[in-house]
């Protein structure tokens, strides 16, 4: 009896099929895939008025196509951020890049490519994307709420034209046959709709899979949540960098940080008021084999106090093992050597400090740096090598650990240009008003002193310390963004795996006068996970069983589920009510 046939809409005349689909699929699917359909209407030109142009621009901006283009631009914009060294993450490498590409670097800098994620053009992309997504998601959320609350549509006239349909004769009268079908569908947790008072025909429309809309809603709301979390991080978070030499202490405040990138609503007094001392730093390198000289492990032993005057605690900061202090995180992002120099001029001691040198080559740790002793009118440009090796009169380093450290200095005397308002890099010596002391670089080992000619003074290379660069970050949006990301994934999966499906049952009086002809039609829009045909077949056979009196499991079951046609909530059934007197089709 059950005769499930393949999509019949192919055989049906095109216009009718389209009409049918239009009714039966009303507000059916609103999955993420359909989002892509948005915006195709946005290409119709704007009307001449300013408001028209505004509406047109808004429609363009909030179209999914624009959002996708912006997302692509965002990804494209991040590329230079990962290829070129970034000021925020690794200022030392930026300095190095400027030295090795003196022609190109200023141009890249003008385009903001050394600080991509803070550059105006990058901000423009993500702000537009933000506006686009919010403009797209908010109205969509309201639509989804509406869609999740909509009852099933009325049963189409000709169910045989639906993709899946079955027709069978029943011994029951049309009303009773539909009631039986409704109780089967209701038992399967379908949402039901029966004809309203005055509607012609005996039918029931049933729909299931509203969880798909819940998933969709969850996806969209979580997407908004992700955006809000990012905004939260951008407004209240901050990122800062500091270079710290072994034995030195720094206190977290704007003036002491080498680099401070606050969020829009962050001021210096919002910084976590901790202080941190670098007690020791060790870098382990592979000693032999093909990967000799590769770093194995870094460890920075620190002592910190979370608040001024608080108790001191010890911790180890390693790569991917940051220090958490007062909701901020302190990451180890770089390291280098800081040779200690003492400079004495004609007027006495002028300089005594561990001077950070910046690695020019991270494999050999050959590093560059300057010593500025304006009190002695002396300045030095230096090269530091941790494991010295002379190759054709050029100083090289053959291993990154400080096994045989040496410095090579070029001395200058004169005005260092430091008594002016113009800021100067502490890693660069302005030699425009200075004269070179000696022709060739002076090579020094730890403990040695270079007596400068004339009465200029002397410089002593006391020893070597190490420095680390630390990134201090605070992002209040991190955890909410993670949670929202996971929720949006869950919502997406729900909306992918749950199918919205509709089953319609119509009964008409049988030509013989006794019993009825029952037609069951089934429809699903997104059959991504398959299986609807099987579900439909089993439902159809259940309905057929229920509406054949002989096969009914209990005689009381059938009249027990008579519907109240005046109720607007059609899926609520009231038991033990006599069958309503439906004006038509109550045959025999």
């Amino acid at each position: 009896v059950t005769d499930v046939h393949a999509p019949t809409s192919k055989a049906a005349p095109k216009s009718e099929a389209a009409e049918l689909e239009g009714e039966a699929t009303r507000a059916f699917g609103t999955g993420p895939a359909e989002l892509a359909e948005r915006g195709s209407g946005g290409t119709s030109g704007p009307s001449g008025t300013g408001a028209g142009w505004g509406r047109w621009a808004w429609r363009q901006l909030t179209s999914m196509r624009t959002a996708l283009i912006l997302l692509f631009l965002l990804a494209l914009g991040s590329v230079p951020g990962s290829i070129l060294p970034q000021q925020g993450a690794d200022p030392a490498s930026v300095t190095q890049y400027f030295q090795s590409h003196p022609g190109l670097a200023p141009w890249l800098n003008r385009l903001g490519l050394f600080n991509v994620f803070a550059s105006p053009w990058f901000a423009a992309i993500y702000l537009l994307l933000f506006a686009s997504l919010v403009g797209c998601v908010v109205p969509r959320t309201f639509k989804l709420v509406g869609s999740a609350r909509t009852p099933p549509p009325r049963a189409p006239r000709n169910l045989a034209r639906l993709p899946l349909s079955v027709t069978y004769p029943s011994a029951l009268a049309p009303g009773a046959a539909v009631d039986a079908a409704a109780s089967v569908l209701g038992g399967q947790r379908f949402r039901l709709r029966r004809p309203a008072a005055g509607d012609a025909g005996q039918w029931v429309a049933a729909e299931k899979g509203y969880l798909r809309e819940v998933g969709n809603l969850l996806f969209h709301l979580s997407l908004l949540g992700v955006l809000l979390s990012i905004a939260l991080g951008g407004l209240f978070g901050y990122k800062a960098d500091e270079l710290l030499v072994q034995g030195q202490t720094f206190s977290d405040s704007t003036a002491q940080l080498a680099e401070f990138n606050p969020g829009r609503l962050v001021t210096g007094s919002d910084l976590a008021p901790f202080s941190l001392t670098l007690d020791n730093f060790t870098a382990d390198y592979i000693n032999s084999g093909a990967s000799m000289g590769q770093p194995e492990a870094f460890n920075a032993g620190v002592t910190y106090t979370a608040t001024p005057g608080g108790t001191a605690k010890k911790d180890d900061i390693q790569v991917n093992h940051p220090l958490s202090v007062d909701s901020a995180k302190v990451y180890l992002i770089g390291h280098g050597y800081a040779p200690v120099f003492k400079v004495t001029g004609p007027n006495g001691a002028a300089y005594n400090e561990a001077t950070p040198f910046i690695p020019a080559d991270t494999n050999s740790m050959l590093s560059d740096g300057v010593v500025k002793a304006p009190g002695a009118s002396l300045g030095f440009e230096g090269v530091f090598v941790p494991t010295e090796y002379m190759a054709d009169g050029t100083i090289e380093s053959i291993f990154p650990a400080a096994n045989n450290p040496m410095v090579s200095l070029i001395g200058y005397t004169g005005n260092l240009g430091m008594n002016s308002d113009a800021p100067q890099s502490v890693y660069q010596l302005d030699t425009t008003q200075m004269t070179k002391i000696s022709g060739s670089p002076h090579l020094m080992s730890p403990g040695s002193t270079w007596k400068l000619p004339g009465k200029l003074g002397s410089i002593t290379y006391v020893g070597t310390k190490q420095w680390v660069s630390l990134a201090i970050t605070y992002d209040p949006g991190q955890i909410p963004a993670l949670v929202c990301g996971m929720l949006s994934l869950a919502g997406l999966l729900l909306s992918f795996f749950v199918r919205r499906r509709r089953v319609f049952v119509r009964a008409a009086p049988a030509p013989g006068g006794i019993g009825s002809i029952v037609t069951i039609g089934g429809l699903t829009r997104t059959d991504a996970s398959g299986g609807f045909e099987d579900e439909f077949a089993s439902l159809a056979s259940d309905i057929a069983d229920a509406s054949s009196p002989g096969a009914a499991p209990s005689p009381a079951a059938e009249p027990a589920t008579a519907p109240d046609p005046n109720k607007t909530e059609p899926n609520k059934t009231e038991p033990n009510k006599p069958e309503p007197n439906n004006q038509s089709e109550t045959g025999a």
Partner: protein
Amino acid sequence: VFKGPAVFRAKRRTVVTTAAAVFVLLAAALVVTVVTQGSGDASANMVAYRVGQRPAAPEFTASSLTGTPINFASYRGKVVVLNVWGSWCPPCRGEGQTLKYLDEQYGPEGVAFLGDDIEDTPTQALSFLRGEGITYPSVNDSNGAVEQRLSLAVPISGTPTTLVIDKTGHIAGMIDGAVTYPEVTTLLRDAGVTK
């Protein structure tokens, strides 16, 4: 009926329109971002706090560059010019003579001058002070603890920053960047010093 080319043409027009719209929006957003970013730096570099709204200056004890103990509580009852500086910072070196002159002018009037030398070593700092002939003391604040306490009271963005603290221990105003003579005398007048 073969309608391929027309469809393609329509599609291309759509793509061009969208690309143009995206470009225009991007350009507009860029202009807005650049304009709003630039406006942040235009603020004046001097802040004066009204009486009653003056932040309290923090208490601290520290030692000077020469090793003498400094207890800031003992400055209470005096107007203090507190200069946050470092010998490595060119504008701090540049303002040295102005501060020295102000010290000579206002020291006899009872105004106390105090430096807070951050991220520095005493050798470099004293070498600079000797060269400039500056005689007022400076806190040896190489670990920045004093500066951090100050920055929790008022927004110090970098070196040099100069605070003028009134006789009750409240901050009358501050100067961000190298000081000028009129700026300091204005804040001193606010703090009740007339000369």
